[in-house]
């Protein structure tokens, strides 16, 4: 069977296509909203492949005997097999093949940094463009959902074991999914009033429609997972109380990295300097783009100059949001060069198409304000790249005497997030690192506290959706083994 899935040739419409012919197919471009139009709305930028485009793209995959792309995927999706199914036109089969390893393909197909993962490993990448694995993943997941074919996974008979999942972001959702399938009672606690974590408050609608996130959550509900919003674990209830008073047998912490870093430069507290978290939460979660129909305001960007400091996906999200809110000039200010930017290549590309101005190799040194203490500008210094630093990237070094002032009305700081100290403060027996991330055994995601597991950004620091998801699944497996192991020994007694 397996060998059949790795055919040297495809037969389509009674025509056999050879490897050479497949290599001749160009990478199929993702259809997208026109840049001039999309900067006036918050609708999704990418429109998705049609079935024809998807099949064309899938046929580019030469079905390697040793599919190295799989090694590039943090959760080892059977990429060759699902792409083969796409080429054959079995889109539902393809969606289900992905879901064996990834419970949130519609989301990962949109937000994974494929060029650093699966597509980086694709053998085609050496001479041609890699197979658009991410676009195909997105297509099959959308196809399954839009045709009403999402299957609620089968849930095993109740085990009588109850697990608390703290946080409803990617780590928590994937952990909850697996635990529910294993027959455990799962309650997910969320601090905000909406479920989805960073997928809701952080990633904008134009990159990840919120409806998709909510539909994924609905599937979990159908599987019997309970959700409680407005619960800040550490404040509303502690982990010890969940275990000792509320009868949870295990706890998974997937609270993310939610404490925004600032730069510590003069003027950072001027009116008009915001964290990316605040700016994006106002717009995404609180729907400030719809003010005054929505009650939450956001800084009025119309005709203003906005600078976003940072080079990651969040920075791209923030600057493109500012543009959509009517900014005259929307700048990315980044201290290294474009090659070092952590953002997905597609986001950088989209940002440029939308007229985002990239001020590279520049570092802010001081924010300046008027007599009312409102931001008027930022003093930047130009940088050049020196020797590689700890991250392997060349260290930016300031060029003496190159300071200049960039006039801006709003500054958005997007240089990353630290850990929220709440869990640490209220559960001191959970070991944390110097960076305040939770220390775990990477094989099980177990923390130093009995029956408490953790995964996602609270363990790794700011990382990706797919890594958080993988961690949630690893933890679910370990929690299941622990709980069921315990259960067996009770039975033996």
């Amino acid at each position, binding site marked *: 069977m397996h060998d059949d899935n790795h055919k040297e040739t495809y037969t389509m419409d009674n025509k056999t296509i050879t490897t050479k012919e497949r290599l001749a197919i160009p990478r199929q471009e993702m259809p997208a909203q026109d840049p001039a139009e999309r900067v006036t709305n918050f609708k999704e930028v990418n429109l998705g492949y049609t079935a024809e485009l998807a099949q064309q793209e899938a046929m580019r995959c030469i079905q390697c005997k040793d599919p190295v792309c799989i090694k590039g995927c943090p959760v080892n999706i059977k990429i060759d097999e699902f792409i083969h199914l796409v080429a054959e036109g079995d889109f539902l089969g393809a969606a289900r093949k992905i879901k064996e390893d990834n419970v949130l393909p519609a989301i990962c197909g949109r937000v994974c940094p494929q060029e650093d993962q699966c597509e980086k490993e694709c053998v085609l990448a050496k001479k041609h463009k890699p197979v658009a694995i991410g676009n195909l993943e997105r297509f099959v997941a959308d196809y399954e959902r839009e045709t009403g074919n999402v299957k609620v996974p089968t849930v095993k008979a109740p085990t009588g074991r109850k697990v608390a999942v703290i946080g409803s972001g990617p780590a928590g959702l994937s952990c909850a999914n697996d635990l529910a399938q294993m027959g455990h009672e799962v309650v997910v606690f969320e601090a905000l009033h909406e479920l989805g974590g960073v997928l809701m408050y952080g990633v904008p609608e134009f990159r990840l429609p919120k409806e998709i996130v909510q539909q994924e959550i609905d599937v979990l509900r159908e599987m019997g997972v309970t959700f409680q919003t407005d619960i800040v674990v550490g404040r509303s209830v502690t982990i010890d109380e969940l275990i000792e008073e509320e009868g949870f047998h295990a706890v998974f912490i997937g609270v993310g990295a939610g404490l925004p870093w600032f730069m510590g430069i003069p003027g950072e507290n001027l*009116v008009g300097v915001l964290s990316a978290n605040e700016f994006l939460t106002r717009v995404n979660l609180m729907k400030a783009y719809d003010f005054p129909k929505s009650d939450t305001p956001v800084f009025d960007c119309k005709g203003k100059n906005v600078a976003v400091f940072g080079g990651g996906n969040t920075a791209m999200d923030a600057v493109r949001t500012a543009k959509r809110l009517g900014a005259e000039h929307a700048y990315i200010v980044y201290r290294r060069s474009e090659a070092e930017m952590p953002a997905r290549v597609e986001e950088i590309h989209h940002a440029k198409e939308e007229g985002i101005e990239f001020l590279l190799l520049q570092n802010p040194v001081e924010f300046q304000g008027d007599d009312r203490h409102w931001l008027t500008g930022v003093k930047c210094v130009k940088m050049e790249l020196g020797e590689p630093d700890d991250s392997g990237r060349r260290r930016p070094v300031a060029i003496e005497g190159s300071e200049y002032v960039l006039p801006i009305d709003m500054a958005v700081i997007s240089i990353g997030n630290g850990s929220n100290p709440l869990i640490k403060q209220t559960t001191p027996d959970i070991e944390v690192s110097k960076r305040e991330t939770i220390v775990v055994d990477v094989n099980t995601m177990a923390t130093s506290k009995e029956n408490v597991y953790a995964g996602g950004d609270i363990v790794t620091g700011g990382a990706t959706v797919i890594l958080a998801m993988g961690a949630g699944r690893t933890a679910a497996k370990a929690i299941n083994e622990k709980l069921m192991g315990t259960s067996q020994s009770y039975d033996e007694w």
Partner: protein
Amino acid sequence: MFKIVSAQFLAENIKKFEIEAPRIAKKRKAGQFVMLRIGTRGERIPLTIADSDPLNGTITIIAQGAGRTTHELNQKEAGDFIDDIVGPLGTPSHIENFGTAISIGGGVGAAIAYPTAVALKEAGNYVITINGARSKDMVLLENEMKSVSDEAYITTDDGSYGFHGFVTQKLQELIDSGKKIDYVLAIGPIPMMKAVAEVTRPYGIKTVVSLNPIMVDGTGMCGGCRVTVGDEIKFACVDGPEFDAHQVDFTNLNDRNRIYGKEESASDESFQHRCRLEGNN
């Protein structure tokens, strides 16, 4: 959904609510707050928990109609529901037996000064309360304050009740009388808190203020509530809301609270206008 059990106006535009929130009622300590969101289109606003009843699972909040959300809240009655209330948030007040402690509440700040006065009393302090209001009909929690105070003072700006003047004048009078004061807590409008800090500063009296910056989530995520305390930047939602009054940069706090001034008044005006049209107000 959180059910309002009782609702009553304490003064013009200032309303007290008891709301079913069992988890919060059980955990809440003096000085903590909740984030509240009335309905789907609503914003999240921080409100201090004035009291709680862990047995009945209710919390008490006191809201002064100042903007769109508080005006809308103040139209709610017993039996109505609030979509979201999350808490208790913030670091609880640091309470110990300081000796003689003064709890000062200005306007709706009395809602916070009161629970802290209770906690100070329970810790064994000699408790003095100064309850400041614009005029007699705006005095809040008079009886409650009295019941926990060894000395209770009321000041009104217009002299219609109690001491004629500001809370700072009463405070200065108490200091001048030679009383040894070990601790002052001040909660109210920013100019009042700043003025209290200036009164106690020369005497080196430990003084704490509870700050009310703009917040979105209230859990440390947005950083909108950052305040300058000494040389450091602090998040009022997780590091506070109480800080050393002598270290707080009140000017910066005041400036930052004005960022959405224009939007807030427009939103409030359109709400009030609609209410008048509908005859609700």
